[in-house]
């Protein structure tokens, strides 16, 4: 072999060796990058891809403050402070700083928690405010971390608590608006799925990034006026003490459109402090969830039915004997002595049961027969909406009961009792809504508590207006408004402002114990309206008080109505006309 042949051979060997090595690399890379592509791509995706939920912000709840919305329920950022006992170097300093800054939010056994050196995570303080968290962060405590949480806050405290409801620890709305409109308030969470670096910073590299923005919950604006609600609760509180009532409710609504101005129930609760509740019944909104026998306030509905059917006028006469027999039952009057031939206006002024039973007879042509009962049912149930849910946007509305005339229970005795508000179970909201239609010109409006939603610019987008239904002749409404005004004028108008059209009716409901009505425990209601003369009333107020083993009458509720009515005249700046 010559020299050149040897040199070529080495080069060739080197080339072959290099080729083999390179081929090995190529084959290996081909195996890893082509054949094993899916496996490693999935592994890479698992390592590098991160997924974050973008929590939607729960919408706020607003009430009206005159013409401007004001927040009743909103969100606040709070922090949970945790410690890693293994790395905390100065536990004494940590305790000192936390107690100095965060005070009562620090766990009582923080020293014990920090002494657990074998653990890596101990919660040492909860519900720490933003300012407190910032002050703690400035101290640069080693081994202390923060977790952000959202908390529902109610800046007005107990105001309208049964309207608002509350949000539980799982973030779900319960009772009131929080419960009824939970899904609207919650919004929809968003999602980010992307490649991230070691510090979890999302990067735009990658082909399968997902970014679905969160849709925050609606900001709901209520028809409730904060000032009227506050005044209603104050009036209730003052008068409950005076008359010895244990519970009270006041509903103020606009009879011109069915919007609720105030819906107050006492006792109430602090929705941000649920742990202090001892009696769970305070969570209920009695105005919509507790049907009761409203008693004589229903006489206005009975007379409206008769006037509308053309069988009665305020001057229609009947002979009052203070009692009337319906089959084997005798119905008597609470106010006795108004015997003889008297007018229906007189019946309403003195709240005579025998008079409204007579009206029911007139509806049947002289007796409470099927025709009379059918007519009463069609007005009470079908037109006035008694015994039916009103559809108000709140959780827990009760239906109540109005017994139909074609049942055994729907006999003449029951319908005689119904003429003065016994033998039926209805909610205060149903009664006030029906009464509103009687005094507003004859139009029934479905009661509503939602004004609309607040947009980003702070403008209220009003909910679609609910059309009313004309259920009574306008002449019927005019007649009844005048009769109810006169009924108040006859005895209870001393405290009224002169120059306004104010009317109302009392109701004293006996309660049932062991299947029998008892007089020792009664519930008092006053239902009335007020406003400028010559126009539809500006407000309807229903007040009711009750106490166990105590006789509270409709007269006990009158001062609350008067107090509230006079306050509303000032608040609405209503102008007096004449005397």
């Amino acid at each position: 072999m010559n020299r050149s042949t040897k040199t070529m051979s080495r080069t060739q060997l080197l080339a072959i060796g290099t080729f083999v090595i390179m081929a090995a690399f190529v084959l290996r890379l081909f195996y890893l990058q082509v054949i094993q592509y899916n496996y490693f791509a999935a592994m890479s995706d698992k390592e590098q891809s991160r997924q974050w939920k973008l929590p939607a912000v729960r919408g706020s709840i607003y009430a009206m403050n005159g013409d401007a919305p004001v927040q009743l329920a909103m969100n606040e950022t709070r922090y949970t402070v945790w410690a890693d006992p293994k790395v905390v170097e100065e536990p004494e300093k940590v305790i000192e700083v936390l107690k100095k800054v965060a005070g009562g939010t620090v766990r009582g056994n923080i020293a014990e928690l920090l002494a657990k050196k074998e653990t890596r995570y101990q919660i040492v303080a909860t519900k720490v405010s933003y300012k407190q968290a910032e002050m703690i962060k400035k101290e640069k405590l080693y081994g202390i971390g923060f977790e952000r949480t959202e908390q529902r806050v109610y800046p007005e405290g107990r105001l309208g608590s049964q309207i608002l409801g509350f949000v539980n620890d799982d973030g779900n709305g319960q009772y009131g608006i929080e419960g009824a409109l939970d899904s609207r308030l919650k919004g929809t969470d968003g999602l980010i799925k992307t490649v991230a670096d070691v510090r979890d910073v999302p990067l735009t590299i990658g082909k399968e990034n997902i970014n679905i923005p969160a849709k925050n919950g609606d900001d709901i604006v209520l028809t409730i006026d904060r000032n009227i609600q506050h005044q209603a609760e104050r009036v209730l509180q003052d008068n409950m003490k005076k008359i010895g009532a244990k519970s009270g409710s006041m509903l103020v609504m606009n009879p011109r459109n069915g919007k609720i101005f105030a819906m107050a129930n006492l006792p109430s609760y602090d929705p941000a402090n649920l742990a202090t509740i001892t009696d769970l019944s305070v969570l209920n909104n009695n105005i919509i969830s507790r049907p009761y026998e409203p008693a004589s306030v229903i006489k206005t509905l009975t007379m409206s039915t008769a006037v509308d059917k053309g069988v009665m006028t305020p001057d229609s006469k009947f002979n009052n004997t203070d009692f009337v027999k319906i089959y084997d039952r005798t119905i008597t009057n609470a106010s006795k002595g108004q015997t003889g031939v008297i007018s229906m206006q007189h019946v309403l002024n003195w709240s005579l049961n025998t008079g409204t039973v007579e009206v029911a007879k007139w509806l049947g042509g002289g007796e409470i027969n099927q025709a009379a009962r059918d007519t009463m049912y069609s007005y009470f149930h079908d037109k006035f909406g008694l015994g039916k849910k009103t559809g108000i946007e709140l959780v827990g509305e009760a239906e109540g009961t109005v017994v139909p005339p074609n049942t055994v229970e729907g006999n003449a005795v029951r319908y005689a009792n119904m003429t003065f508000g016994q033998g039926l179970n209805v909610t205060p909201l149903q009664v006030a809504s029906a009464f509103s239609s009687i005094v507003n010109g004859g139009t029934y409006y479905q009661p509503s508590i939602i004004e609309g939603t607040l947009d980003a610019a702070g403008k209220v987008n009003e909910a679609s207006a609910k059309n009313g239904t004309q259920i009574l002749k306008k002449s019927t409404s005019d007649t009844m408004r005048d009769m109810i005004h006169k009924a108040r004028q006859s005895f209870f108008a001393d405290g009224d402002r002169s120059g306004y059209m104010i009317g109302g009716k009392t109701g004293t409901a006996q309660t049932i114990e062991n299947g029998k009505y008892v007089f020792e425990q009664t519930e008092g209601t006053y239902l009335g309206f007020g406003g400028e003369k010559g126009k539809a009333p500006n407000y309807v107020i229903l007040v009711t008080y009750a106490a166990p083993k105590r006789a509270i009458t409709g007269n006990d509720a009158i001062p609350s109505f008067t107090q509230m009515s006079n306050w509303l005249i000032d608040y609405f700046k209503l102008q007096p006309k004449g005397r």
Partner: protein
Amino acid sequence: MQTRRSTTFSTRRSGQMSRNYNSVSFVSSVKLGPVTHTVLVALMITVLGLIYLTQATKATSYDYAASKIDSQIAELTIQKNDLEVENARLMALDNISNSSVAASMTQPSSTQYVEQ
């Protein structure tokens, strides 16, 4: 550099030349071999790779900037919400009615109405 001058003749019909025009071409004596070509191609690929990397890194650097701004927005939102809650608490009716300003207010003795 060494150049070689050459004169060529072509007919008018060729369309490339005109009368009194000389055609001169210079042929470089430097020749690039396959290794040089390979190196040049490698260099070009490297430069293109670097340009790509610069762009990709630039996009990532925007991600960090965006992330920082997001954090600032979140922080400022918390501060704003905190102030809104504080404001709402201070403006609560119970606070207002119990304030010294409210305590010093008096009921109007009479109200006059403008005739409409």
